[in-house]
């Protein structure tokens, strides 16, 4: 089985970011919790962008035998 692609990493990061945003938007948190969560969101967004900036296409060729 192949190792995870950048797509899977992106999906994982994006799903967590999405969850963070939704929790922030629900607004049931204390300010301290919200700030903490926001920092996590900012980290996730930065990690996503980094991933998108540095991704390199992987090409694998099957044997035609």
């Amino acid at each position: 089985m192949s190792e995870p692609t950048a797509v899977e990493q992106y999906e994982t990061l994006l799903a967590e970011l999405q969850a963070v945003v939704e929790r922030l938007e629900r607004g049931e948190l204390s300010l301290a919790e919200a700030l903490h969560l926001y920092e996590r969101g900012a980290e996730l967004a930065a990690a996503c962008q980094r991933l998108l900036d540095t991704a390199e296409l992987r090409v694998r060729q099957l044997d035609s035998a």
Partner: protein
Amino acid sequence: MRAFSVSDLNSALRAHLEEDGLFFDLWLLAEVVEFRRYSSGHCYFTLKDEQASIRAVLWRSAAERLARLPANGEAVLAHGRVGFYEARGEVQFVVDQIVPAGEGLLNAQLEQLRARLEAEGLFDERRKRSLPPLPRRIGIVTSLQAAALQDMLTIFRRRYPLAEIVVSPCLVQGELAPASIVAALRRVYAEPVDLVIVARGGGASEDLAAFNDEQVVRAVAASPVPIITGVGHETDTTLVDAVADLRAPTPSAAAEVAAPAVVDLRQRVAELRDRAAGAIMARIEEQRRAVDQQVTLLRRNHPRRHLDAARQTVDELDRRASRAFERWLALAQTRLQGLQARLSTLSPQATLARGYAIAQRTGGQVVTDPAQVQAGEQLQLTVRAGTLLVAVEDANE
């Protein structure tokens, strides 16, 4: 000498004709005569040209797959094999496809195949699957020789470098191409891909024949994951296009539609980041308002405010007190004047003025009773205008 039965002979003839494979997979160019369709659904007719004829049969199963049945006198291309009907010792041509001869053999075959596949429902729109929004592994079935593969890889590097591309090479033209494409498809289906592209750069339309091959078309239709075709140029349409989940006009176009562009993914991240920032700003603003409210409340409850209030109360009481005092004072003065007035009416002077006199003993004692004095005692008598010294003659009443 050995005598055969007729059955033996016909059985041997049938074996000879049908089992050596010589008369399989034939196309006959002929005219249809004596066409009859039986209630069983089987059709019997004769195929002939100027010099010769042969009995032909079209079994119901084959007849049902035809777009339309041939008519008497029609020139046709009939595909089938030679069979031998032992019971009557007759040779017959067993037809499985039959098309009007006018359109050219290749076209006719293609149309027959198209009609057959369509009848099977392979082109049905309901079969079309939607593409994965973020494909992880994309299989590409194409030739390593053509520019098409490099064009597609260039597009993926630029637009969507997140994926893994699994290239399954094959021949795309020539007699061996169909089998090669089918094998390449099967190899890529065995990989954990979630999308497949079958591609072939442009070429003369006969070079695209492999993509009209029945086995290739069926292999594409059998893809376990969504499959995109990018075969030939814009104007070419092949049967694989009709069974694919999505038909792109060229290999490059197939790569473009296969995945979103990385700029769109960046945009999605940026949107979420902005939403997070918006939410936290709103939260902070809300907090600030709450603090402002607390400050207002606090100000309202500051001790100085109590003092002020107390002072105000005191001032008020003070004002009320002095007003009361003034009123009291005024009242007192009025009363005093009244008293003075009454006092003045009671003063001895006023009584004296009316003609009365006050008698006092030498010690100043006012005489109100004759028993206070003795005869011969001198008394001072005060009248309005002065005093008199008088002597008491008689102290009896």
